[in-house]
């Protein structure tokens, strides 16, 4: 990291994660670590068929087994008034939304669809009993390929008479006019294949219903959303439902969901009067926890001879699997909002068609729509450059939205908050000597070594909020997406921060403590951050879409500012000064210019709680803020990847990965680097290794970590990270999100690097995943063609 000066306060400083010691010493408390008195276990009977009518379910043998309390099917859950939720209703758009029940009622639509639940005394007993539930299936025709599904029968949901979910477009300018101006038009069929979230902790729940009170422990990113829907689906007052997300071992979007298993556990606990626990197996997680991407796109980009892009038109066919989950059909639209990337493109259009197939549903997985958009933009742009005989760096510079244009409205009307795209690219080129690389590349080629350099310059839309845009009257999410925080200064001067976000590995306990500590003049060690419990702290909107700092952190700031205002009034009264003359410095609130006569926060809290506050002021020291920003935030960056391709076998090795990112003002550079590292692994993983694959019968082929190949440290280089700082004008801290950045950038950088390596062999495009066989085949085809 070369961002030099260390700040005077805690914000901006490298600080190790205060939440880590218990997590890395086996002392965390995950759902599976929790045992409640009298608790029973649940295990699900799941469909082995991709599409079938259920003709009978015989639960008698399972129910008769020792240690089994009950076996329930969909027919038992008649008191649940509505199917599982889908929360996107865009104005003026018809979204086909078939009923999706927590336990299948008459038919199963994908492998793993749950048809019954066995409840019993221990985990082994219920797993054994699952094998004694006999379900007769009448197989129905299966459709796996989205292009086949959109063409007609067989239908996943016969009642709809189509596999089409919806159509949605976002356009700015006139793409046909733009193509008419173009000297070169590149067309691509870009496949962005299906991937898994694969968190280290699978899902898990414990539901404890007592008359008038439901408590649900769930490994979730969204306890507040889960609470709302459990209340609605079970007919319990939302105030009587408490959802707790204890330590959560990663989510990557997979745990941004309201799952049927959560509902079944709550319902069964109410029915049986005892707590019910379910811990997901890895096999279940791979086959039924929602997956991501799975888009096939027809992409056209037009440019003038000088490299100026005149039009970009993308037609996305998005495979949603068997059902709409909570935000399924919205996901590709998130890409549409940034389909012009970091380029000034006057004519941009995205047309989305959603389609059902007999596969696990898709929904948000890290990046959610933006990695797909970035891949389409960046690989197509490289081909435009190639056809114009331009350098990939040069064509990017030619088209960047200039720094002086910000805030910058794109063709589609989305306003980017801030950016300096030349700045990140300049910094990237300090790390990557392109002329030296090209000379080396040329020399190596003569020795039969195929080395490639790929770039990705990108921006994205995150900090999900603001309600006016995301909400019912805007994009159509049936919720406001603001965020909340409550700050409580205790008698002793210790501070508790209650956030409505629900971190599950991001490091927000540390980041939020740094923010609050500076404002209140205390050590971050005495600032406790509490999250993931709907009974404690204000209503919240949880963690996803790289929103927790830009929305949740800003709410923390604003709530803390309210505390500071009150503190200043108290201190001013105590020191007989004016509140506007009070400042915080050296751990004390004091009159400007007289730092010796100050009051530490603990002294102020003492006054506040004893009640010796100025006349008219309420006692206590506790404030809440609900923050709804004016706009999204738009982080950006420039990444480069260098690979070697074994032209004989097709195997790709990543030699270097350099990431220069700009997420506004850094709160903790260590956390930023951590997020970039993880995100880049995810993106490299998709580009080279990871793929969820179903065979033609709808059977999942990649159900274990043997076949679903996550990248490991052995395959990856040491990442080189750096950053520029372009503050966001949207929030007072000038921050942007960074949780998805690496993932959004990396797959395109890797793909471009592989293509760059192989151009002499006649290869000008390969779809991900760039597996050895696929690369080898592309080399064979390229060599045959040239």
């Amino acid at each position, binding site marked *: 990291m070369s961002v030099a000066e260390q700040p005077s306060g805690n914000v901006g400083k490298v600080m190790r994660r205060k939440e880590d010691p218990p997590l890395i010493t086996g002392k965390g408390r995950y759902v599976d670590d929790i045992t409640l008195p009298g608790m029973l276990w649940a295990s699900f009977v799941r469909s082995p068929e991709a599409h079938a009518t259920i003709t009978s379910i015989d639960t008698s043998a399972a129910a008769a087994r020792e240690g089994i309390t009950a076996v329930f099917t969909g027919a038992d859950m008649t008191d649940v008034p509505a199917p599982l939720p889908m929360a996107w209703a865009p104005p003026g758009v018809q979204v086909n939304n078939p009923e999706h029940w927590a336990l299948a009622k008459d038919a199963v639509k994908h492998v793993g669809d749950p048809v019954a639940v066995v409840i019993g005394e221990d985990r082994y007993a219920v797993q054994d009993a699952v094998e004694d539930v006999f379900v007769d299936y009448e197989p129905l025709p299966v459709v796996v390929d989205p292009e086949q599904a959109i063409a007609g029968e067989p239908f996943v949901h016969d009642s709809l008479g189509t596999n089409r979910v919806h159509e949605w477009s976002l356009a700015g300018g006139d793409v046909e006019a733009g193509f008419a101006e173009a000297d070169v038009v590149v067309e691509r069929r870009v496949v962005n294949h299906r991937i898994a979230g694969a968190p280290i902790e699978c899902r898990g729940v414990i539901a404890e219903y007592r008359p008038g009170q439901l408590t649900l422990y769930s490994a979730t990113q969204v306890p507040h959303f889960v609470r709302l829907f459990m209340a609605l689906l079970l007919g319990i007052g939302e105030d009587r439902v408490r959802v707790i997300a204890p330590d959560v071992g990663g989510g990557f979007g997979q745990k941004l969901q309201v799952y049927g298993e959560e509902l079944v556990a709550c319902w069964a606990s109410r029915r049986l009067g005892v707590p019910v626990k379910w811990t997901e197996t890895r096999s279940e997680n791979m086959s039924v926890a929602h997956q991501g991407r799975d888009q096939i796109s027809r992409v056209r980009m037009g440019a003038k001879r000088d490299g100026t892009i005149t039009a970009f038109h993308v037609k996305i066919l998005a495979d949603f699997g068997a059902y709409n989950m909570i935000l399924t059909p919205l996901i590709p639209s998130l890409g549409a909002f940034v389909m012009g990337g970091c380029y000034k493109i006057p004519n941009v259009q995205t047309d989305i068609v959603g389609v059902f197939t007999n596969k696990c549903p898709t929904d948000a997985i890290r990046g959610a729509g933006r990695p797909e958009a970035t891949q389409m933009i960046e690989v197509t742009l490289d081909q435009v450059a190639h056809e114009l005989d331009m350098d990939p760096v040069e064509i990017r510079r030619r088209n960047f939205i200039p720094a002086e244009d910000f805030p910058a409205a794109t063709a589609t009307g989305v306003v980017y908050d801030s950016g300096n795209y030349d700045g990140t690219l300049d910094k990237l080129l300090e790390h990557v000597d392109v002329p030296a690389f090209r000379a080396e590349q040329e020399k190596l080629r003569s020795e039969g070594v195929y080395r490639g350099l790929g770039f990705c310059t990108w921006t994205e839309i995150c900090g999900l909020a603001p309600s006016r845009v995301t909400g019912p009257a805007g994009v159509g999410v049936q919720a406001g997406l603001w965020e909340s925080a409550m700050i409580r200064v205790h008698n002793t001067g210790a501070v508790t921060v209650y956030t409505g976000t629900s971190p599950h590995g991001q490091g927000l306990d540390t980041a939020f403590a740094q923010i609050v500590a500076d404002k209140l003049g205390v050590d971050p060690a005495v600032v406790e951050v509490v999250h993931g419990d709907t009974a404690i702290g204000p209503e919240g909107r949880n963690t996803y879409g790289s929103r927790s700092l830009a929305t949740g952190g800003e709410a923390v700031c604003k709530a803390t500012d309210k505390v500071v205002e009150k503190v200043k009034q108290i201190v001013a009264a105590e020191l007989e000064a004016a509140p506007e003359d009070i400042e915080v410095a050296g751990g004390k609130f004091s009159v400007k210019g007289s730092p010796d006569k100050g009051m530490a926060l603990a002294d102020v809290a003492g006054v506040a709680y004893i009640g010796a506050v100025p006349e008219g002021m309420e006692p206590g020291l506790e404030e809440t803020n609900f923050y709804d920003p004016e706009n999204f935030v738009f982080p950006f960056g420039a990444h480069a990847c260098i690979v070697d391709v074994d032209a004989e*076998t097709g195997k790709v090795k990543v030699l270097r990965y350099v990431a220069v990112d700009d997420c506004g003002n850094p709160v903790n550079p260590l956390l930023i680097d951590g997020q970039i590292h993880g995100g880049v692994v995810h993106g490299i993983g998709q580009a080279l290794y990871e793929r969820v694959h179903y065979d033609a019968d709808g059977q999942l082929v990649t159900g*274990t970590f043997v076949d679903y190949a996550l990248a*490991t440290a052995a*395959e990856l280089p040491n990442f080189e990270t750096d950053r520029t700082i372009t503050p966001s004008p949207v929030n007072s801290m000038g921050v942007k999100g960074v949780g998805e950045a690496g993932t959004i950038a990396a797959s395109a950088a890797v793909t471009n690097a592989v293509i760059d390596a192989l151009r002499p062999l006649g290869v000008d495009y390969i779809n991900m995943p760039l*597996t050895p066989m696929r690369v*080898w085949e592309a080399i064979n085809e390229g060599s045959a063609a040239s």
Partner: protein
Amino acid sequence: MIPAEFHYTAPESLEDAIQALVDGGEDAKLLAGGHSLIPLMKLRLAAPSLLVDLRKVPGLHGIERQDGAFRVGALTPHRKLEFSPELGIVAKVAAVIADPQVRHRGTIGGSLAHGDSASDLPAAMLITEAEVTLQGPDGQRSVTAADLFLDYMTTAVGEQEVLTEIRLPALDGWGSSYHKFNRRSEDWAMVAACAVVKANGSTCEDVRIGLTNMAAVPLRATAAEDALRGQELSPENIAKAAELAAEGTDPPSDLNASTEYKKHLARVMARRAIADSLAA
């Protein structure tokens, strides 16, 4: 792990272990390092009624040289093989089995008795012309590596037999190399080739080439061996011989590799393995 119910015993002698297998019937299974059996039990693809754990049985560990060969105890972990360079090709093969955790727990005997065609050690047993010792209720017998692997995950080890020892001829003066092709370092071989070469000056006095995952059992690339034996070890001759490495094979296609691609890989890996054997 939530396996089906099973019984467990850890006998303290070989005789007791064999007796436990006899008493346990056809659903009794031996447990060595557990790195093949336990994952299958976890997925409930295997549901043995009885696990006979060999961990307390004495005399099944260690490597010692005797009469021109190494006697390797069946419970010797891959990690021990990896750091026994005197084993030549076997040490090199063991070094790239899965990851360090697996190498610390997984054993040579367990791997050979399991007989997975994608596992690394079987082909190396073929080209070292190893023999295994099997002890059963009716006594002891020896089986050559060529006769050990019968079909996919099927070996000559009887249901009531314990593979106790591997006899590896010491290939003094032979060069060796292993080229394993996989997507990630911890993965099973998509295809792999191991080679041992005995050079006399620049002439190939003898060569043996083993192939992994090209069939339901490990294979010798005999056509390639024959083409190179007696020839000068020039890059051209090696390449010509390696072109024959996939002759007669018809590996099944899978998620990561078609039949044609596997055959191509076999030729490339064989060439690289032979060439690198000369340097080592």
